[in-house]
């Protein structure tokens, strides 16, 4: 954090000493400082999801209040996964899995919050470059791609994950106070996967991304739940035996107890 704060003036200095034309443009770029309410989310008993507060400030390079209006876009992404998406279609009255497509990198979690609707602050090309929104996700499909089919599958995936709260888009979720401080709340549901989550904040003005900052959140399992998840993978045989033993034991105990009643 401190290093990042130190870096920003350094970068500004470096930019000013570069080409005069670029320097003029760079000099007007604001300072964007971003922070997250917690850098570690512990998934354990009682975890029902959590709310992350992503906040920060935008300042002019000289440290004064930004003179112009900026729009802020905040994106929180979970670890990428490779998936196969299957689509059901009706054949002879029965719905069966008919077609499927593979994606190489689908974020396990994607939440966007912005201060205004994305299509009002950037054009489609910029939105596609920065993946501003669920319509612009780059999912890296594999194999031959028919654009129409790809669009259909992507829409299906986005709809599925949106209903699981794993994909969120809240245009208007960022509030900016006094043109300086911004904040956004992003809800992490209980069904998030563990791993490294990256929060990116973009300051946008005049359809152009003029500053960005990233920070990280580690989501990991803790305590008893980590042990269970690990043992299921590592010692599967003993884990299975334990499951069988537990069920036999509980059934036996219940039998004994009720025999007494």
């Amino acid at each position, binding site marked *: 954090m401190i290093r990042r704060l130190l870096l920003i003036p350094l970068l500004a200095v470096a930019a000013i000493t570069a080409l005069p034309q670029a320097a003029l443009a760079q000099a007007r770029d604001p300072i964007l400082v971003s922070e997250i309410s917690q850098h570690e989310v512990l998934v354990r008993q009682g*975890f029902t999801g959590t709310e992350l507060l992503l906040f920060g400030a935008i300042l002019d390079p000289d440290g004064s209040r930004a003179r112009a209006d900026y729009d802020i876009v905040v994106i929180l992404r979970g670890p990428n996964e490779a998936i*196969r998406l299957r689509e059901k279609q009706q054949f002879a009255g029965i719905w069966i899995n008919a077609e499927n497509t593979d994606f190489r990198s689908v974020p396990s979690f994607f939440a966007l919050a912005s201060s205004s609707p994305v299509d009002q602050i950037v054009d489609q090309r910029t939105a596609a470059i920065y993946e501003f929104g669920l319509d612009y996700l780059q999912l890296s499909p594999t194999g031959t791609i028919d654009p129409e089919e790809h669009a259909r599958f992507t829409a299906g995936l986005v709809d599925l994950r949106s209903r699981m709260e794993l994909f969120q888009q809240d245009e208007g979720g960022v509030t900016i106070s006094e043109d300086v401080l911004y904040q956004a709340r992003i809800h992490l549901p*209980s069904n*998030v996967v563990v791993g490294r989550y990256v929060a990116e904040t973009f300051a946008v003005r005049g359809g152009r991304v003029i500053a960005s900052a990233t920070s990280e959140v580690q989501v990991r399992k803790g305590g008893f739940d980590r042990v269970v998840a690990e043992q299921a993978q590592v010692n599967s*045989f003993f884990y299975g*035996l334990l499951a069988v033993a537990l069920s036999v034991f509980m059934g036996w105990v219940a*039998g004994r107890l009720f025999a007494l009643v």
Partner: protein
Amino acid sequence: MDVYLPIANLAVNGLVIVLLGAGTGILSGIFGVGGGFLTTPLLIFYGIPPTVAAASAATQVTGASVSGVFAQSRRGGVDYQMGAVTVAGGLIGALIGAGLFNLLKALGQIDVVISILYVLLLGTIGGMMGRESIQALYRKPQEKRRAAKRRHHPLIASLPMRWRFYRSGLYISPLAPLILGILVGILTMLMGVGGGFIMVPAMLYILGMSANVVVGTSLFNILFVTMMVTMTHALTTKAVDLVLAGLLLIGSVTGAQIGTRIASSVKPEWLRLMLAAIVLLVALRMLIGLGWVPDEVYTVEPL
């Protein structure tokens, strides 16, 4: 009461799961069916990933049948000899089932096959049981002594090599229960159910076992087959969720005890009619599910 399930990767209301376990436990105590045919679809409906639901339901069924087996064996309601033969068949069947499961999964048709199996099997068995129990209920008391009741299916009599199964009151070829065991084993692996709802009617109507050992022997078979299925899942899919299974167990072991008590106080014809109704309802729900636009047209599978 929020409980986080470490394998299923989500938080659920623990009380709902315990009650779900209790409901299926009561069924298992009353009818000698494992209740997996209800637990698995309900867990999936609650949002738990299908493999985790099937694997953990199998673990739960083990627990429910342990207390059931103990309760039944106190009443002398288990034919261990018959049980041993069906368990042997069940283990062979589970292996065949595991192969089929992987084949169908690779084709992406596993859930459709499972649904069709549910509809066909539950529909047929529920229909048969329902008709039989209604006939039994409407029969006048004096007609009750059926002249020369047919013991077992004629096909069974044609099988070679005969054993005496004293408790079942049968003198038949062990091949018949072995084949039954294999079939149930395959279904257990494919459908994630204990198979009691097939075992009980098949023992009654095809093998012709005496009614007082049917429930206990079926539970005995379910106990061992579900243990095998839990192990197979733990080793291959790694989808057994101990927390989920534990919650289901708390409910179901209690429910099973209550169920056994209900079973001894209600007329068997009514019991069978009730089971038939439940089985038919599940079949109908599955049938609707096949023809209607599914809740999820798209499904995600990790690569």
